[in-house]
């Protein structure tokens, strides 16, 4: 069966696709950042329980308080890019979602359980003692599973060649396991997440825990250690990922497309620079390099998607509605600006608010 005949027709876009692409690429790395911080902080908190000494105890307690926030922001910041992905690639994304429906739905309970476990870890920190390690192990297992489910969907939606399997397995129990890019892509994402999460821990320790230098120091040491070694691993996995790409997509990065090749070059360069900064425990520099690197990675990822879909689907071919309406976009942008202003005001109030509860 010709997979192209299976691809659902895309609904017309209400604005030229560049707008949605811009918003997708703007918000997706923010979700990645929050997700990385969540996964990496969970790992760091676990490691802090294994390391000896009171500073590490205090560090894990501080991390415990931060973790529930990270779930909330990971979910929230995931909503925006998922929305724009729905607009741009809904026809492909819904299809792969249906093919793996059971697993996709499992994401929700898995995240809810992880979320409550992290609240348990926070609110019951003292009672749990070192038993907390089991809680964190469970959280990591849950989150890494969720990541695996996402990797499956994101790779399956760009691989219509495997979609015909639905005819024999229509119950939503398919995964994309036969795809050679799945495993390296997933591992690349997750080693990256754990590494960047380590960096977040170091950053958090340096900025928020400076009142307690011992703990801050423990946080920086642990965080940067995780960041450096896992980033090194991530570079290796990334190269493996590159080799599994289909020849057509690989060619894009090897000179076939100027922008793709430049992205790869810049990405590698920045990754190596961040790595050096990491091994030298230069937290600020490493963070300054990593945030833009996340954007570079997101664009490379987008290149893989466009390249893999090239034989079947291109955003240029999706129709745009005849009367383009700008006012809803304006509504959104104005609300976004106001919303961010209100958030900034609220955070300002927190910053000036006393640390101790009034008698």
């Amino acid at each position: 069966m010709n997979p192209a005949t299976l691809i659902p027709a895309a609904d017309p876009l209400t604005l030229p696709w560049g707008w949605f692409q811009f918003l997708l690429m703007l918000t997706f790395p923010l979700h990645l950042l929050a997700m990385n911080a969540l996964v990496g902080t969970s790992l760091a908190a676990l490691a802090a329980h294994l390391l000896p000494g009171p500073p590490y105890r205090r560090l894990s307690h501080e991390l415990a308080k931060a973790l529930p926030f990270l779930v909330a922001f990971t979910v929230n910041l995931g909503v925006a890019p998922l929305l724009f992905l729905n607009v741009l690639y809904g026809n492909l994304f819904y299809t792969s979602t249906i093919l793996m429906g059971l697993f996709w739905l499992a994401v929700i309970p898995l995240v809810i359980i992880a979320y409550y476990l992290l609240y348990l870890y926070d609110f019951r920190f003292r009672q749990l003692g070192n038993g907390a390690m089991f809680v964190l192990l469970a959280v990591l297992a849950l989150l890494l599973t969720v990541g695996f489910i996402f990797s499956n969907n994101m790779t399956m939606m760009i691989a219509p060649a495997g979609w015909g399997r639905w005819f024999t397995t229509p119950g939503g129990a398919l995964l994309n396991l036969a795809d050679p890019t799945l495993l390296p892509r997933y591992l690349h994402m997750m080693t990256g997440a754990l590494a960047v999460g380590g960096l977040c821990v170091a950053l958090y320790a340096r900025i928020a825990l400076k009142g307690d230098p011992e703990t801050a120091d423990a946080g920086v040491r642990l965080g940067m250690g995780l960041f450096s070694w896992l980033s090194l691993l991530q570079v290796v996995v990334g190269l493996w990922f590159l080799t599994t790409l289909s020849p057509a997509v690989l060619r894009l990065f090897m000179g076939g497309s100027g922008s793709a090749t430049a992205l790869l070059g810049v990405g590698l360069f920045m990754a190596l620079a961040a790595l050096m900064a990491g091994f030298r425990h230069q937290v600020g520099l490493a963070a300054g390099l990593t945030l833009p690197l996340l954007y570079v990675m997101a664009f490379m990822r987008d290149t893989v998607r466009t390249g893999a879909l090239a034989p079947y689907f291109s955003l240029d071919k999706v129709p745009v509605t005849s009367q383009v309406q700008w006012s809803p976009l304006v509504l959104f942008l104005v609300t976004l600006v106001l919303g961010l202003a209100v958030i900034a005001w609220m955070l300002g109030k927190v910053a000036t608010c006393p640390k101790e509860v009034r008698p």
Partner: protein
Amino acid sequence: MNYPVWFVPTFGGGLLIALVAIVHVFVSHFAVGGGLYLVLTERKALREKSAAIMAFVRKHTRFFMLLTMVFGGLTGVAIWFVISLINPAATSLLIHTFVFGWATEWVFFLVEIVALFIYFYTFGRMDDRNHQLIGWIYFGAAWLSLFLINGIIDFMLTPGDWISTHDFWSGFFNPTFWPALFFRSFMSFMLAGCYGFLTATFIEDAALRHRMIRYSGIWALASLILSLPAGWWYLSVLPAPAARLVHGASPTIARASTTGAFSLALLSGLLIALILLSPKARTRVLTALVMITAMGYLGAFEWTREAARRPFVINGVMYSNGLPVSEVSRIDQEGFLQNARWVQNKEVTPANRLEAGRELFLHQCFACHTIGGFNNDIIARTRNMSFTALRGYLATIHDKRYFMPPFAGTDAELQALAAYIAGGLNHKPLTEAAGAGGDHGKELFEANCAACHGADILKPILAGWTQEKIRTGLDRLPSLNPAMPDYTGPPVDKDALAGYLVSLNHPRPQTAAQPAPAAPAAAKGAGLFADNCTACHGLDQIKPALQGWPRAKIRTALDKLSALNPAMPDYGGTAAEKDAVADYLAQQTGGAQ
């Protein structure tokens, strides 16, 4: 049609949507009303300088955060996951139309999260004025989320002018926008009062506990009373067909509405009792009951709204099975299978008929019917229907039963679907002569042969053939033409078929007379009954109801069925047909005279 179907035979997606939506609705409305409850209760504590009430607010905030942020936030995402899984075409349409409405809601969601975290974690640290302001920001953002999502949800029921203008704002501020917004706002305040009860029962100090229970009770009761006119307003602006459904044309909806009204009444009673008897009536059982009834009220409303949209996901625009309304007439011409992407049988042939029928079922009916599941099981629903009856039923399914979409496709496709349901699922012969005085052989021919060659093509070929020759031919069709599959019907059917075929060239049929019915009119009535009534009730089911009815009474009733039960469509048969049905029913129920 455009998308594959998530197919777990015994499990309908509709049920999953309903479950997730109902859970989310309770928590998300609470997340809105609860915001107001928190700030006002905080103010009360400050005014009365009561540290105990403040401690209560704080404890309630923690419960509120754990419930709304984790569970509420993720079930909201879950709804999105579930609808894109079960109604991808509609989700795509909604997202494309309202993407910036959703994006704006996302901003409020972000503000909500930040505000709630700050509100909870700065209790007792931040100065009172700013702390309350943060609470108000939380409530404002939460209510604005409701404002936005309300527009999109109501669009599905009443798209209004959007259908012609495709204008974002006319779709958003659609005819049910304002009444639904009022209703939902009051509902959210009511739920906040209910959850307030729940935490208040945990207060140690008896006097304070009673005060807070009474306080929450007044909240809930006042909001409940205010919600009544809003709900009434909402019902009064529903479009006519939806309104008719709500008022009893569909049994499930009628049931839901009654449940809603019933739990509503019960709820008010309980609340009042609680408030008046407060010192003793503080038991958790009672508050749990209040919760259940409150949720019943809101649940019935949501259920009704969902059901009132049937057979559409987006009223007048797209049917629940993803079929765009504007496409139906084209598909009737060109064929459904030709136009569907996720089917393997692009055309109905005698060999693939059941398979093609299965694919048609999957794409057109599975949205609302499980196969052997407990939710609207198609096998149970069609147990009484013969192949012939099903064919008749499918041809007018939407006209007779408004809450189902029309069957979209060619006649051969309709036959295939009927064959799949009758033969494939119910294991009935696809040849049964249940038709009204129908020629059995002719029906067999239509069911088994006409897909490839009609009678007019066969007539010249069979000229000069005797009935015996035709009958023998039917035993070995592939030897006549290798493209022809064997006909596997029982010998009696073959006899009947041969009789019909010979009659094509010999107007006086030589067919073996069918067993002479005892009373011809009653036999005709039996056929009519099978075709028109058994979809909903077999003879056994109505026998008790008709016990002792004289024939004349039955006959009169047949003229005004919808007056007997609003769920029953009027019978459009001729007077003679009604006579026949009346004869048959009277004879069967012992009232013949």
